[in-house]
């Protein structure tokens, strides 16, 4: 029983982290139409910058607030200088451009911070363990289980009820129309990309106390968030939530039941979903 509970918590904590990151990816795709290969690199940068800031101001909270903001700024620069030029083009160019950005960012992190491993400590408030029956479980992971939906809820409320949220959704649905009624779409795009980047970096900073930092830590994230986004439906908020939850749980319980086939779980999920529902659970025809 307690084993089941622990696996459940594991799946949820990873799933919620994945949800935040995938949310960024899916929002960017929904509004800008770009699938950002470098999203995983922003995740990694968020973690590294959090660590770096903590060297200057030894508080996890400063790291997690400032780090992602810096990365979001980088996202703004990238969007204005590079992505803007390929908006109208074939999707393969956009993928390749973001892939090139991934190459540059990943190697840059290795050059700046070195190839070795780095470690980030969770804040005192959230460190330590609590007991479930006879077993201990880290408090920080529980924090992840709660933080994910909270941030997600805040964003959802923003998109549903605030003026800016509605504008973003309008621009996502029909770009030309939105421009026609006077919305400054280019500015909006920059803002949305910055938001997406911030989400990835925030996810990275959240993940930092929980896994060791190394260059290429974005690799796993990018493939899994791609899968979540595609399975959940491109541009769909609830889709990202459902997809991330399902993937997280499958992976966690998969380690127990599937042995070495566990590696294939994300891809099998992807194939099955796409075969049954070609646009993902909640997706619409683009």
């Amino acid at each position, binding site marked *: 029983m307690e084993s089941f509970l622990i696996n459940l918590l594991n799946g949820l904590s990873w799933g919620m982290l994945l949800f935040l990151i995938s949310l960024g990816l899916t929002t960017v795709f929904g509004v800008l139409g770009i699938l950002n290969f470098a999203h995983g690199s922003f995740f990694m940068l968020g973690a590294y910058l959090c660590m770096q800031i903590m060297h200057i101001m030894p508080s996890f909270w400063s790291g997690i607030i400032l780090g992602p903001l810096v990365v979001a700024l980088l996202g703004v620069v990238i969007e204005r200088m590079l992505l803007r030029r390929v908006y109208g083009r074939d*999707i393969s160019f956009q*993928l390749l*451009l973001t892939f*090139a*950005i991934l190459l*540059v960012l990943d190697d840059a992190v290795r050059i700046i911070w070195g190839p070795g491993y780095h470690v980030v400590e969770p804040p005192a408030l959230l460190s330590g363990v609590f007991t479930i029956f006879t077993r201990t479980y880290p408090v920080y992971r529980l924090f992840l289980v709660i933080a994910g939906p909270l941030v997600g809820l805040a964003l959802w409320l923003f998109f549903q009820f605030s003026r800016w949220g509605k504008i973003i959704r309008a621009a996502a649905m029909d770009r030309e129309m939105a421009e026609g009624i006077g919305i400054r779409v280019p500015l909006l795009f920059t803002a949305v990309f910055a938001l997406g980047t911030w989400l990835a970096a925030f996810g990275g900073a959240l993940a930092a106390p929980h896994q060791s930092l190394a260059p290429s830590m974005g690799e796993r994230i990018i493939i899994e968030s791609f899968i979540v986004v595609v399975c959940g439906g491109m541009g769909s908020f609830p889709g990202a939530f459902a997809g991330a939850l399902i993937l997280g749980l499958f992976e966690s319980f998969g380690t127990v039941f599937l042995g070495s086939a566990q590696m294939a779980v994300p891809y099998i999920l*992807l194939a099955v979903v*796409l075969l049954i529902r*070609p646009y993902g659970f909640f997706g619409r025809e683009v």
Partner: protein
Amino acid sequence: MATRRRGKNAITLSMALLALVACPFVLPIYWTMILTEILIMGLLAMSFNLLFGYTGLLSFGQAGFFGVGAYTTALFLSKIGSSLTVALLAALGTGAIAATVIGYLCVRRDEIYFAMITLGFGMMLYTVAHNWLDLTGGSDGMPLMNVPALNLLGREFSFFDPTVMYLFVLAVTALCIFFLWRVVCSPFGLMLTAIRENKQRLAFVGAGVQNLRLAAFVIAGALAGMAGGLFCLFNAMATPDILHWSFSSRPVLMTVLGGSGIFFGPLFGAAIFFGLKQVITSMTENWMVFLGIILVPVVVFFPHGILGSLIDWIRTRTTRTS
């Protein structure tokens, strides 16, 4: 008029082929080896371009078929002990079979979904290669313990000689590329281009769009498998990494570098890629950064690829009003 042009093209092609055949005798050994790699990856890229440039399908899973071909050759040569021809034809065959099964499931989807589902299937093949310890040797890959000798006209040539390996690879790739050329020029090939241009209209006219796409996918898969078989022979190994999605990005990269609109574009893209790699790695060990930095302007400013842009530029300089 047209025959004269075709005659000229045939002459230039023959000259190019002759130059390629002469290469190993004038270049240092190491460059011969690089050229061999360019040919193998070029074949993979050209098979990819059949789907991308001609049919309008972006496949992120070609590495899967490449890997299937490589492992097939490794298995046939190491565990079954068959001859070279059988092993390579088996690579072609398994590539085609895998592509038929996977293609049947994939071709219904469009654009980004097609890319994602091919990525997914490619990664599933990767997982099999990575985890099935008994069959594939697991994550360490499978070394080719007995590289066969080439039996030609009664004489035996060893593949350990880089020149022999190169010429063999050149012969096989030239054959495959010639086959590809015939496909592209045939009515079938024209239909593929029509699919890329306007899928709906084609469907209205009654052409079986899905079947055409599937056929293209199978051909691409078969050729990718053959390239994989050659790879296995050249490196004396098959490893799971060649099925990973990041390896699938290579033919995409090479095609974009070279230009997807020209038949030989991907092959030139492969040459550019390896040339760039050589130059960059001789100067620094941070080659990924520089590859990314170079790739960015290429993608942004050269939508027709480097070769494509070069040809456009030459064309604008030399147009005659007639």
